[in-house]
């Protein structure tokens, strides 16, 4: 594969996630609205929101520091980079030596670190509440994610996303106990990390149970737009990750024809749509849990991930 082709594919991937992320958010909202027999906002509403926010004046509290103003750019850059690293329609990307799955998890950790700090910058109690709960949730979700990464990496013999995606796309893996455990754990982590019901509710304000929304309460204008965009990107990232590992069909591997790439893109969009629809249905069917039930929920993911890893330590065929 020539350098030009691979750069083109990398660029397409980087732009595709950017273009698709708000659409996914709008799609999930639409599904939820339809399930509640509302008409719901149009699919393209998130794009309009972003454009509108970016055009507005930004209001910043008097005592906000440079960190508060720089954080949205950093968070957006980290999340964008992380989501561009996950294989979507093509398995092997030329820049994949930059970061493997562990580095990807840590990149999202960086974004969260600065978001929590930004939440504490203005010195309001809502910001503190959000940051404190966010790090509590992350303190369980992140190790759970690492254990899931371990399970997948032990299985594939690599932590490199390109290698893993190629392996799952090309060789018949079959049903494995460890991968099943990892899938359940990954879904739990994805729900928690994206602040979806039952862990957090992305649609509420002014509720003492809120986490993410409390941290970003002081943000407005273009800063808020970047943070909302990062949230959408992160949701897309987790769905792409689940699709690349557990639903690997249709992914174009190295050296594929342009038609295969186009087909891969179509299949990818279909997979994300199905994932988004499932998420919307799940969120509509379940109630939000109390914040101190969340550790139990995430503890399950951690234990499942650990169990998956342990099984692979005991036997490579499990």
């Amino acid at each position: 594969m020539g350098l030009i082709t691979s750069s083109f594919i990398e660029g397409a991937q980087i732009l595709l996630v950017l273009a698709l992320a708000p659409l996914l958010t709008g799609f999930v909202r639409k599904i939820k609205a339809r399930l509640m027999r509302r008409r719901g906002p149009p699919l393209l509403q998130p794009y309009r929101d972003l454009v509108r926010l970016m055009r507005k004046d930004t209001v910043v509290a008097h005592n906000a520091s440079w960190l508060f103003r720089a954080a949205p750019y950093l968070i957006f850059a980290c999340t964008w980079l992380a989501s561009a690293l996950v294989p979507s329609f093509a398995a092997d990307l030329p820049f994949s030596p930059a970061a493997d799955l562990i580095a990807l998890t840590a990149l999202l950790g960086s974004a969260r670190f600065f978001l929590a700090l930004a939440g504490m910058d203005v010195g309001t109690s809502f910001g503190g509440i959000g940051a404190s709960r966010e790090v509590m949730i992350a303190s369980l979700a992140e190790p759970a994610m690492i254990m899931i990464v371990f399970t997948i990496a032990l299985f594939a013999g690599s932590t490199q996303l390109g290698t893993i995606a190629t392996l799952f796309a090309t060789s018949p893996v079959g049903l494995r106990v460890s991968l099943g455990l990892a899938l359940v754990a990954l879904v739990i982590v994805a729900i928690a990390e994206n602040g979806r019901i039952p862990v957090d509710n992305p649609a509420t304000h002014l509720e003492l149970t809120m986490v993410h929304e409390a941290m970003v309460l002081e943000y407005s204008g273009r800063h808020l737009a970047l943070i909302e965009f990062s949230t959408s990107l992160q949701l897309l990232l987790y769905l792409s990750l689940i699709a690349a590992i557990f639903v690997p069909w249709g992914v174009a591997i190295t050296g594929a024809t342009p038609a295969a790439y186009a087909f891969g893109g179509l299949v990818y969009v279909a997979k994300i749509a199905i994932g988004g629809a499932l998420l919307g249905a799940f969120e509509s069917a379940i109630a939000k849990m109390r914040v101190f039930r969340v550790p139990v929920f995430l503890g399950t993911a951690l234990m499942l991930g650990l169990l998956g890893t342990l099984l692979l330590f005991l036997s490579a065929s499990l």
Partner: protein
Amino acid sequence: MLPWLLVLVAGLLGLVVVALLGRQRAITTPLLYGASLLVAAGLLSVAAAGFARGTEASLVLPLGLPWLGAHFRLDGLSFFFLVIVDLGGALASLYGLGYGRHEKAPERVLPFFPAFLAAMNLVVLADDAFTFLFSWEFMSLASWALVIAHHREPDNAKAGFVYIVMASFGTLVLLLAFGLLAGRDGTYDFATIRTATKPTLVAGLVFLLALVGPGSKAGLVPLQVWLPLAHPAAPSHVSALLSGVMTKVAVYGFVRIVFDLLGPPDWWWAVLVLALGGTTSVLGVLYALMEHDIKRLLAYHTVENIGIIFIGLGLALAFQANAMATAAALALTAALFHVLNHSLFKSLLFFGAGSVLVATGERDMEHLGGLIHRMPVTAGAFLVGCAAISALPPLNGFVSEWLTFQAILLSPILPQWGLKFVVPAVGAALALSAALAAACFVKAYGVSFLGRPRSSAAANAHEADPFSLAAMLTLAALCALAGIFPATVIDQIAGVTEGLLHARLPLQAGNDFLSIAPIAASRSSYSGLLLVIFIAGAMALTAFVIHRFGSRLMRRSDPWDCGYPDASPLTQYSASSFAQPIRRVYGTLVFRAREIVEMPPPGDGRPARLTVELHDLVWDSLYVPIAHAVSAIAGRLNHFQFLTIRRYLGLVFSVLVALLLGLAIWG
């Protein structure tokens, strides 16, 4: 080169005399720190040059025991640790140039500071048991004198007492270890010990003693109790040396004995080291989360990081026991890389805490806040330290944790069942401690540096002096460089693993995009440089696009806070309230945490109260019984103090007879 190093170390000892002679004069403080900066920088450059060339040298001086002499030797391992000791020493001296001016009793610090540096250098250079133990004890005593420099402050006397007891215990254990290594012939030079054959039982015993002796100096749970008391008690640049450097000398002691002197390990050693390392890392960070004194919080994080280092060392032992040399080299590289990283960011963080202490007079985070406005440079450097210790890419802390994870991923082929169960659990512990560390540093930074000031001292803080800032900025830059160009560090450490394990990682310097790939690029690779370029590029592009096509207007206003802005800064989240969810999740098990709410009935004028009870289970279940037992035995033996001279002589005679009898029977 070795004579040069010893001359420079002697120069440090000479500075002790200078400090003692000039203790009444104000000029001594800058003079001494300036001189120790120069000497440490000299040591650093000689050591770094030797390390880069990979030379070895040895030397015997007619000092110490007459039939033994003082052996000194330089190999890859000692070069690596010399660089760590002298880099930390040089920057602590630089920081001391500014920080030392605020010292109220400089005569209690100045003589011991160069002595402490010299002792740490000597431990790393020593090549026989006597010189090693002598330097080790010298290091303990010099650091003890620094710990009790401010002996009148509350708790510091207790800290000094606990430290000296634990330090003496550690030296005693090391003495026994070397006694066992020397064997019946009593050969104390390391060259002979290294080649001697050791029976399995003796090797196992020496390993256990090496785990307890240097382990107590490093702060392995359950021997960590002195560390969070002693490290914060010292002046801040000394705290940085204690946490950032002396614990590394302890790691050096462990590595020297176990990897170099003992020879091939047994697999159960690895199980023990891994279990202790995993426990230490998680417990250390949980203790730190409960803390709101910023220097004690940092000291508990030292415990956590020592745990991470020992996880790497345990993995190296496991691979070595199964003759998987390259994997062992990977795990040892990860551990040594983390040794370097921790010395960098922990010194940086203690320097930052020292600057906050000078600026506000406060160590308690509950009285800080908003310092990012008053101390912008300190705040920036401290932020780099926080991100590095939280293992966030692209800084250095992440690289060493990533390497440790890669080593864990190699371990399913280990044949022993004990290891198969321990290693995944340790991997989970490592991941948990990394996530909790990030939580802890969001707390530390958010409460101290962000938000609104919680006291007038914090509101009127001032930026640190130029020397302190220079030291902090240098360390912050080194943290970034080690994270962005890890290939250079790994290739240097390869010389150490080559010497200890006869194996090394593949050369990293030629990889694409300066990435590191410990095994193969298709298996795992990471490039800090690419990440930095991508993140910086994406940030610049985003800012450009938004400012060009969106809006660039910004105005200041009151905080929104859902329409109810808090009048008082005391309504902000405090360090304790920030940690409350984590205390509820983990604390009930680990600390038997209990919240007691006193709510007076309606109409009663008393305020409502919330009290939190935490128990240090290690202290309560291990140290308190030992202290009770010692005091009970002492009480029983007390009447021996009041015997007549006749009875004392009788006692001496009967003990002599008993000993001779013993000798006659077993000898």
